[in-house]
């Protein structure tokens, strides 16, 4: 029991942190900065303990004597946990200045972030459908509140309402799916579902397949796949910058934790059933996302649109798994890592700039940015290149693996379409680079302030580059190879 406690530390520490912050938040004499540090402290404990746990799992299930097989322990979940906590830590650190520049932040904000991280961690460990639902709702409800945190701003409130109404409705789909699956299997644990799926022929599983499709709808909604995408741009736009950053980089990945587990392990025998459906959704997502991203004038909305396209690339990987591609699953993991790094960086820069002005930040506002902040502009360019999949960045390797997996599974058209949308994405990402570099500025070149946000963003930029070109030739410094090794470990630990 005490032994198992060690494996629970990551989650317990985040939960404790969330509760502590909630209790402290009514105190007026604690500054936001200190709240921030408290939150980071708990997240760091969690991060470090996850790092220690990684690869040393001795238990199959967490507190099996109490929860039976509700919470699974494997490297897959731990690697996702690492990303969640890292994403939250980076969000909090990068936005250290942003909190000060806006009046509406308070202690609850940090508590909610920790609650949503806790929800996501539950999600990655969940091995039972009702727990999945609860975890999803813990994470989502926190995010709904965070999106509308600026309650006097119309756009923000509208975004929250939109997200909450649509999100709750798709949550109902999830419940319905769970009910149907329970009707077919007689249990909601993933273990029993696997047994049932492996033992029954496809023709006799109508109820389960329908239930599974309902689960898929929820997942598609959460990752913003077309035609379930209508909320994404408005919500990303309405949310405060730190929350947009948190949603785009961290929350989106959390959904893939459960999606991959279900698709690769539990529905492995029948996942080819959804292949055509997934392919259709993928095509729509790639084209629709590109269309939305091209037509935006605000950079934040463009990034929101492009995040739909990135979901499309990930969906290419998922349908490749169904067609028997071996590299597809690690490819998705790698792409998630790559997207995580680039999204944290690019949204981080946006919110960093936003902390110094109250502007809406359209493309036009970036004119002459390279003259004002040359290093910041350089890093922004690096993140844009990585998102566009330009070689020498980690984004290129991510696309490389996704497209090879598509070719391997014989989906040449999807691979071609993916490359085509990558080409289209060059337009809207390079447009930002062009804005930053090609126009003169009226402002004087300021001195370059070095603070924690800039240091972190610079580190992210270095990792993005090194993850793309880093070679195993240089000993002791992990390069691109170690990222893909991590991705493979994660997939191999699934059971």
């Amino acid at each position, binding site marked *: 029991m005490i032994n198992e406690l060690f494996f629970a530390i990551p989650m317990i520490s985040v939960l404790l942190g969330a509760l502590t912050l909630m209790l402290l938040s009514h105190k007026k004499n604690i500054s936001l900065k200190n709240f921030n540090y408290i939150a980071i402290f708990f997240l760091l404990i969690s991060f470090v303990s996850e790092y220690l746990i990684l690869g040393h799992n001795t238990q199959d299930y967490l507190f099996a004597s109490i929860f039976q097989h509700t919470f699974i322990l494997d490297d897959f979940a731990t690697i996702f946990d690492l990303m969640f906590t890292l994403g939250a830590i980076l969000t909090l650190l990068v936005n250290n200045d942003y909190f000060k520049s806006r009046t509406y932040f308070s202690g609850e904000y940090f508590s909610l972030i920790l609650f949503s991280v806790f929800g996501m961690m539950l999600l990655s460990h969940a091995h039972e459908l009702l727990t999945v639902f609860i975890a999803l709702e813990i994470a989502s409800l926190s995010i709904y509140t965070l999106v509308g945190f600026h309650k006097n701003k119309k756009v923000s409130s509208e975004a929250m309402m939109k997200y909450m109404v649509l999100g709750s409705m798709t949550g109902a789909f999830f419940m319905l799916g769970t009910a149907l699956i329970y009707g077919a299997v007689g249990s909601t644990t993933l273990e029993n579902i696997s047994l049932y799926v492996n033992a029954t022929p496809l023709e006799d599983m109508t109820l389960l397949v329908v239930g599974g499709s309902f689960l898929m709808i929820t997942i598609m909604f959460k990752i913003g796949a077309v035609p379930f995408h209508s909320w994404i741009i408005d919500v990303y736009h309405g949310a405060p910058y730190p929350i947009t950053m948190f949603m785009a980089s961290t929350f989106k990945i959390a959904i893939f934790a459960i999606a991959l587990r279900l698709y690769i392990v539990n529905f492995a025998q029948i996942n080819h059933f959804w292949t055509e459906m997934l392919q259709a959704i993928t095509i729509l997502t790639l084209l629709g996302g590109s269309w939305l991203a091209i037509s935006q004038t605000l950079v934040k909305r463009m990034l929101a649109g492009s995040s739909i396209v990135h979901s499309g690339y990930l969906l290419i990987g998922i349908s490749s798994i169904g067609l028997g591609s071996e590299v597809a699953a690690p490819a998705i993991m790698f792409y998630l890592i790559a997207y995580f790094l680039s999204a944290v960086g690019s949204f981080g820069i946006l919110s960093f700039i936003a902390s110094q002005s109250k502007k809406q930040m359209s493309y036009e506002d970036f004119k002459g940015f390279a003259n004002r902040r040359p290093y910041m502009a350089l890093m922004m360019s690096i993140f844009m290149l990585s998102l566009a999949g*330009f*070689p*020498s960045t980690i984004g*290129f*390797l991510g696309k*490389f*693996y996704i*497209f*090879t997996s598509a*070719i*391997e599974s014989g989906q*040449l058209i999807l*691979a*071609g379409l993916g*490359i*085509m949308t*990558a*080409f289209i994405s*060059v*337009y809207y990402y*390079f*447009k930002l*680079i*062009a804005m930053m*570099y*090609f*126009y003169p500025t009226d402002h004087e070149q300021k001195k370059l302030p070095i603070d924690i946000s800039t240091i972190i963003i610079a580190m992210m930029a270095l990792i993005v580059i090194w993850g793309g*070109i880093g*070679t*195993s*030739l240089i000993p002791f410094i992990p*390069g*691109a*190879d170690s990222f*893909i*090794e991590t991705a*493979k470990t994660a997939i191999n630990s699934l059971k």
Partner: protein
Amino acid sequence: MENILTDIIFLPLLIAVILGTIRASLPLLRVGAIFSSLGTLALTLLLTYDFNPQEGMQFLVNATWIKNAGMTYNLGVDYLSLIILLLITTIMPLLYLYMLKERRKGYWYNMMLLQTGVTGAVLSLDLILFYLFWETMLLPIFIMIGKYGSGMKQYNSMKIVLMTILGSMSMLFSILYIGYIYFETTGVWSFALNDLSTLIFEAKTSIWLTAGFLLAFAIKIPLVGFHTWMAPAYGSAPTPAVVIMSAIMAKLGVYGIWRFGFTLFGSTLHFYEPIIIVLALIGLIYYAIVAITETNLRRMFAYSSGSHLSLIALGIFLSNIYAWGGSLYFIATHAIASAGMFMVIGLTYHRFQTININELGGIASKMPIFTFFFAFFALSIAGLPGTGGFVGELLIIIGAFKASFWVGVFTATTMLSAMVYIFWMLQRTLFGSSNNEVIAKDLSIKEILMLAPLVILLLLTGIIPSLFIPMFEPGLLGALK
């Protein structure tokens, strides 16, 4: 000596990164850039000294890069890459001399990055590595046109980037598919050219794969029909960028066909032979006609460059020793001549603030030395006997006649049409009465120093070709068998 190729590729980038991190002052930056170009020149000369013309690929570097994906860090140099490498390293110091007074720091950084990009593309023997450099060299061009260019610079730089990346993306698809075929046959991933050249493709697949590569190269050259980016980009780009684009990057399109096209899909390329030959023939005549009508010097020589690159592409696809030798020779001499020409055009702009033919005129009486260089480079582009261009063009034309009478006839018209636009242009720019009030100084010592090496090289290649041809002849004969 083992890592000499790595050093040549990454020296400029390394210096740029160091200077960028320490936020170097302008004089230091200047010294660093010039040092990087001279350093690579010295290393390349050392390499040339050790190069053995009788052998194929030399100075091979075989290292794993990203093991899981089968990407390797394979480098090597043979006669063709050596020629282009020598061109890059010779032109770079001269360009730095040209832009010595440039005060914008970004300019210098971009030039160093550009050198790493083009050098890497020439030396890499791994498809993904090649793709990496092929894309990387586009970035500095994008920034240089958009930031330091003239005219509709933002629009034109976006245009060149989008068109070129469209080509690269189709190439990427082919590369990935080839890698997959290799994986399917052997069970391991590899993108090394050595491994992939052992593959035999199904005829139908092969045709599609070749098309992916050819699109990228056709846009880069550019063959007629894929050329809409060319004149605007050349017109807007600052002089150093134009020089690199016309002298080096356009040649890389031909180089790509040669290195990757012939190695991977030797027989399939024959399928495309008639199409490319027809496109090249149309191109060399069409571009020449457009060049006659252009009044902007830069755009005129952009089309002239397109016309001559079509000639080179034509030579590559007429598989006989004359055409191949001529193409190789012309790659080098045209690069030198067009580098000189675009630099002289840049100098013209500095002096007269215009490069429109109608606003120039009567230069000869005022600036004799300038006139000499201007006329010399223009004439060597036209293929004046005694300059290197003549040797190259002549060899290609002989090769064309060997292949077919009519191809020969059409090919020979390049020389004629080039004479038409060059002489007419010279008459209107250098002679006649002056159409502007500018009182310009003749070339300074620095400018003479910058152009003289190119003149000497052109004369050497023109008068004693026997000095250079043995360098690549054994390799060519080997390749033809």
